[in-house]
């Protein structure tokens, strides 16, 4: 199970087609781009895990402010270092693909925004999220006062059970009202 040396077997290909939202061409392209990241020795091993630094050299992820969180969320590595196997990579592309459903996208979006991995978005998570969105440098941040006001507004709008955090259902409730979330939550190779 896992990637063979340089080509995907036909059964594996059809299995991937069934289990992800990707088309055959997209899976083959993903395989090509993934093997370009491997060194010569790694190409012979099966199930190689590529480190996060190398994954982040891909142009589609290089300048994304959420790149590190994306790698952490889709990684199945035991060391929690964000390294991805080919199958993790396919999971990533499937969630970000054109035909993925709102449900799967909102689920993964929630996990990406959950910076401390505790299952809810609390004030710290929201603050880090806003800083990622506006840019990390000093002159692109909101002032403390503005940030406080913004997070109060967000919690007032989305936190339905008033526990001070946004959980998955509340998050999906907000997302479902946006008409262009699905088209913007897209990464295509």
């Amino acid at each position, binding site marked *: *199970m896992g990637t063979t040396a340089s080509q995907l077997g036909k059964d594996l290909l059809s*299995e991937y087609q*069934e*289990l*992800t939202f990707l*088309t055959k061409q997209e899976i083959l392209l993903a395989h090509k781009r993934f093997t370009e990241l491997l060194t010569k020795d790694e190409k012979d091993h099966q199930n190689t895990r590529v480190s996060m630094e190398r994954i982040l050299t891909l*142009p589609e992820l290089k*300048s994304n*402010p959420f790149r590190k969180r994306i790698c952490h969320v889709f990684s*199945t*590595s*035991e060391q929690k270092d964000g390294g991805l196997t080919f*199958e*993790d990579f*396919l*999971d990533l592309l499937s*969630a970000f693909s054109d*035909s993925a*459903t*709102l*449900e*799967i996208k909102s*689920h*993964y*979006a929630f*996990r990406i925004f959950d910076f401390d*991995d505790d*299952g809810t978005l609390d004030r710290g998570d*929201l603050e880090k*999220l806003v800083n990622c*969105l*506006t*840019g990390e440098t000093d002159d*692109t941040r*909101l002032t403390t006062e*503005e940030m406080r006001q*913004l997070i109060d*507004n*967000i919690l007032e*709008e*989305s936190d*339905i*059970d*008033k526990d001070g955090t946004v959980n*998955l*259902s509340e998050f*999906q409730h*907000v*997302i479902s*009202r*946006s*008409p262009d*979330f*699905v*088209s*913007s*939550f*897209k*990464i*295509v190779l």
Partner: protein
Amino acid sequence: MDGGLQREDPGASYFRESLRLRRRPSRVSNQLNRDSSSDEDEEEDEVDGEDQARELRNTPFSMALKKAVRQAQLMKMPVVSSSNSWKMKRSKILRQLKSSARDVVGYLTLWDKTLQKIGGNFGGGVQSYFLFLRFLVVLNFLSFLLLAAFVIIPSIIFSRVGTSFSNTSETLNLCADCAAECMEYEPNPQGLRMFYSYFLDLLSGTHFMEYTYLFYGYYSNTVLEDRNFSYNIPLAYLLTAVFYLAFCLVCIIARMGTAARVAVVTGGSTVGNYSMIVFCGWDYGCLGDRATKLKQRNVLYRLQVDLEEEALKRRAAARTLKQRVLLYSLRVAMFFVALGLIIAAFVGIFEATNFSQENRQEEGFLSLLLEYLPSIVITAGNFVVPMLCDQIALIERYTPSTTVILALLRAVFLRLMSLAILLITLWQQITCEGDTESQNCKLCLYNHVDYPCWETRLGQEMYKLTLFDFLVSVAVLVLVEFPRRMVVDNWSNKLVQWFGRQQFTVPANVLELVYGQTVVWTGALFCPLLPLISVVKFVLFFYFKKINLFNNCRPALRTFRSTTSTVFFLMVLLIGWCLAAAVVIYSIAEIHPSISCGPFRVSSNIWSIVPSSILNLSEVTQEFLFFIGSQAFAIPLCVLSCVVMCYVIVLAAAYGKSVSLLRKRLKMEGRDKQFLVKQIGELTRKLQIPNSE
């Protein structure tokens, strides 16, 4: 893979919680999204195996886990019968066909990817401007095809074919009892001319450009009749022009209907705005550092603008009575100031047009300047007055969204009325202010001394306006925007930085487009190639504005909501259409056409060709047409229209009520949830059962 499974626990628990609660609603919300294909097919598909596999796709498990679950499913699945496998194949083929059809449509749509990139980086407001521009390009192109098919190409064919057809040529249709002076028309004066005069002629549409297919004067009033084929060019010209205006009206209204529907459904709601920006605001398709920085700046500005507007609203609510009285009286005063400015601009345009018409005898560059004087004054007015109105708006201190709408309305009024004034002054000169006994107008019922072919003159004015508009925009882009960007980027002087980079102000740019389109509609009757020229102009506009946007602009400080703005732009365009329609109707019905040129040279007014053609039709058709025009038909039609309109209004009111009711229900739902959660908390505390969550 143990570590992997353990890693999955959050995912599995997320999944279980979300899937059970959200299975049905997610299908509904997916259908609202119009984007997902798999769910719609899910409903049609009856085969279990496919369904299960697609549900498995929708789970947030890792690949290894999905494979394991799939194996388990396959063990349990019954053997696929031949009919079932045929159904599976059919549904798979249908799905592939659908996706490839969607790809083809996306490929053919003009500028699709560019528009998405603009929307992702600059927001919906700016994207709606470019969508509007694309709509105008398509509209003008279709209009040009219409005009070409029915007027230009037949004219070209018949002029080539010449007199080989029997019946009627130009000479037979000359006015028998018109004075000889009326028929004098010399667009190409003989003799030596300066070398640069060709360039001047290109810009003003005179001399070598005047007697071409570009202008009305070149078309002849040939009526060709062969054995079973007859083509009446004057009739075709008139009917095509009328149909062209009607076609544009239908397109605008249809588009306004779809846009209004979207606006009503999404409600333009300000609720959930901050959460929406923060959770859904990032475009993951942004590639490269520059696009990312651009998008980040956009998000930052949007958040800052909304926070600022909220702070303003709080301050406005806290105003004392004395402050309010002062503010309202200030607003009334500023309204009159703005009105005064606009009237001053009108007077300026009136004087400039008169001056330009009176001094047409100069030669060379001075003559070009005088010819363009009305356009120059109009453009200067359109530049200066909105700037002053912006300063006035600062004193008025309305909310930002109201300020934007007010600015747009004032600018619309100014621009379209200045065009109207230009046309009115031209008309007054052509018809000698209605005085048919004055010296110039006595012979031919129009001013044949100054305007031997007045329709061509009008066409030339519209041509000049279009060209000048375009040249000014390009000049501003090259001479102002790019240097401004370079100065701001390289010079860190405080004043320069406060001035900042150019903002892409959507309303001002939309106004330019509406003005240009109104000019095209007004001039199309007199200059049939004008839609083609405007197609080229708008296409070049698109690329110039796009380059300007990406290189020189920062995101606008005043965001314009995209859903309501599309409807607003189309409404403004409709105002322009009404002006153009009024001009065309007046020209067709009232003014005597030129005797020396054009397809209508023998009629007393342009419209009279229609009644005379109807008299040539068969008896039955004539009876039918007269019946339609009579009162016996019109009054019942009126009554029926009123009934239908009442019904539609009542229906719309009912829908509006149900939409607001549903919105209130949504708010209630939120409160219901809070209440239920509190109840659950109390109950668990009472029963002292450990919280299973």
